[in-house]
């Protein structure tokens, strides 16, 4: 008998489905963190494969910074409706009011650091014991060292020196009261893997992933930032009209666009194969602050 051949995408998919089912089996109140971005959209496709014809054993949860792209929010709502799954939205705006937090200052006021507060509030409100996220180890060096089941304390903190050894594909999600687990089913996928999977599965995405005309501000670094009402511009700032797309869809005040005519997934993959700048490097303004930026934020409860 010939042995069946499985592509690397089949293997990554099988691993991710296995992880999602372990979450369903091990936790009482899990949640899937859903931003409307490509990685979390892929997670919903994997969840369909893991749990249909049943319902997802978790709600979709979105932490809305208030600076999100409107196209992405629309997509989020329509996908949740199409899936027939529960969507919980909690807003950073409310957290700022409730906890009397200071709004970020500067020209490009990113609310990314404040997301952590809202996330922790939401975890407490719903008593979530596991939060599934679409983070990948190829995104950043600190993420390259995080486990697939990552135990966080009451404050959501990650302690890289106290990580549990993760053996074979045996995932240990046993926790004490107050702790919770972050789970990353697509840890072993790269950006290119995600796109190839989207291509293979014919997964629909928000329009801002594809090339479109947009009014942008040119940053001193040469990066382009889509013009929006949250930016505090000077008169000297250069405003241009460009054909762009976004590689990630985070907070619109700190997610840069890249110039691109890519109209289809195939075009995007071609773009990526030629691209020489990493996803976070191309598009995130806030990671460039220090080399340990992500490590510090994860230690403090960030995803």
């Amino acid at each position, binding site marked *: *008998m010939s*042995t*069946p051949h*499985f*592509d*690397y995408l*089949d*293997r*990554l*998919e*099988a*691993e991710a*489905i*296995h992880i999602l*089912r*372990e979450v*369903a*089996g091990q936790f009482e109140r899990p949640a899937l963190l859903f931003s409307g971005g490509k990685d979390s959209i892929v997670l919903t496709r994997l969840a*369909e*494969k*893991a*749990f*249909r*014809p*049943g*319902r997802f*054993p978790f709600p979709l949860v979105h932490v809305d910074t208030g600076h999100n792209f409107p196209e992405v929010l629309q997509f989020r709502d329509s996908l949740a409706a199409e899936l027939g799954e529960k969507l919980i939205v909690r807003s950073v705006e409310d957290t700022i009011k409730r906890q009397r937090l200071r709004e970020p200052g500067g020209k490009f006021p990113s609310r990314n650091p404040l997301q952590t507060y809202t996330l922790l509030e939401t975890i407490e409100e719903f008593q979530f014991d596991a939060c599934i996220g679409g983070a990948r*180890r*190829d995104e950043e*060096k*600190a993420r*390259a*060292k995080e486990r697939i089941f990552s*135990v966080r304390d009451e404050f959501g903190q990650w302690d*890289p*020196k106290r*990580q*549990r*050894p*993760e*053996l*074979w*594909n*045996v995932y*240990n999600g*046993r926790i*004490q009261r107050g702790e919770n687990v972050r789970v990353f089913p697509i*840890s*072993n996928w*790269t950006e*290119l*893997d995600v796109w190839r999977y989207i291509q293979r599965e014919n997964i629909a995405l928000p329009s801002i992933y594809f090339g479109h005309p947009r009014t942008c501000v040119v940053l001193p670094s040469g990066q382009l930032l889509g013009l929006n009402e949250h930016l505090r511009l000077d008169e000297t700032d250069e405003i241009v009209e460009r054909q762009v797309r976004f590689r990630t869809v985070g907070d619109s005040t700190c997610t840069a666009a890249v110039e691109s005519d890519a109209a289809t997934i195939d075009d995007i993959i071609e773009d990526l194969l030629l*691209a*020489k*700048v*990493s996803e976070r*490097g*191309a598009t995130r303004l806030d990671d460039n602050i220090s*080399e340990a930026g992500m*490590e510090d934020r994860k230690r403090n409860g960030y995803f």
Partner: protein
Amino acid sequence: MDLLRFITCGSVDDGKSTLIGRLLYDSDSVSLDVLAALENRPTVHGTVDLALLTDGLRAEREQGITIDVAYKYFTTPRRKFIITDAPGHVQYTRNMVTGASTADLAIVLVDARQGVVEQTRRHSLIASLVGIRHFVLAVNKMDLVNNDQAVFDQIVADYAAVADQLKLPHVTAIPLSALLGDNIVAHSKNLSWYTGPSLLEHLESVPAFEEATIADARFQVQYVIRPQTDDYPDYRGYAGRIQSGTYRRGDRVHILPSGQESVIEAIEVNQQEVESAAAPQAVVLRLTDDVDISRGDSIVPVGSQIHVAKELEATICWMDERPLWPGRKLLVQHHSAVVKAVVSAITYKVNVRTYGRAATESAQLNDIVGIRLKTAAPLVVDSYQQNRATGAFILVDELSGDTLAAGMVETMQNSFVPEPLGFTI
């Protein structure tokens, strides 16, 4: 295109991180902004320090060492690779076990000036213990011994004794220089006497996943799908991953540990019914009978030589700072099955230098010991030698939830192999 997972192991300063950096760099997997971040950092040689590509945490950069397992990815036209970078320090052996547990291949790195050292023996033992079948003896820093073939040949001969003792199935020795890139991707004229494959050529051609697909069929239930909707009022599907082998519609199966028998009515992959499915596919099985099945139960073909056991002998690597003493109560997590257990005896400790076994009273952090385990409920297992999926388990602290040990089943006592009930369906 398929997938190969490998681990790199070696002593401190053998150049593991540089080797990985070199593979990423030479396969064009490093983006410009990441390189720019590296170039902003001071280096000893005045060139880019490739090791910094993998040393991710601040403490590691400050101390210049690797303290935790890091995962890296690169792709060639032939394969996607997942690299596990395991630290060389003795106190972090548990991380090496962690990294090796998912690997298909181990690169054992040796400094050409040092040859086979105690760490080489330790790492080879651990890699072989967790069932890795393909070994690369990477003799690094050949440039520092004038690319001398005699030095390489001596190290290969020394390592042959290790390979022999551990019965390593496949060993390939490659002379190289990670710093200069010799024999990493391309053959180097500095080492023209070597006619074998470069490291990357070898990694691209090693067969992956040979065992899992040809082994006996094994499946454990992770989650029961019961929609109870108008469209699916009576649907009951057993969701899980095929751990090894192949399942076919119509197979007669045992549900273990209960011993009930049934027949596979349907196999679903992504809601599509298929005739057969194989490891490592994630599937849903539906059975013809309405039997009592829950998470952690195994569904295996009738006639399987699998054991239902409440007493096991196993080899473990102890990973907790507090030592293990006989009589310790803890949890065994065997994939989706979790049962209470007691370590009734510690039967031996492995000397990682000589590979000999000696009596011991307790197990300390990083010790590899044999234990006898009694479980409160039966486990459905194979020996680890027979099946890397169903022979593996972890030990967990019942209160803190911490993972205490990696375990591999050696033998089963007072177990039974399920017999067919004898009626035809």
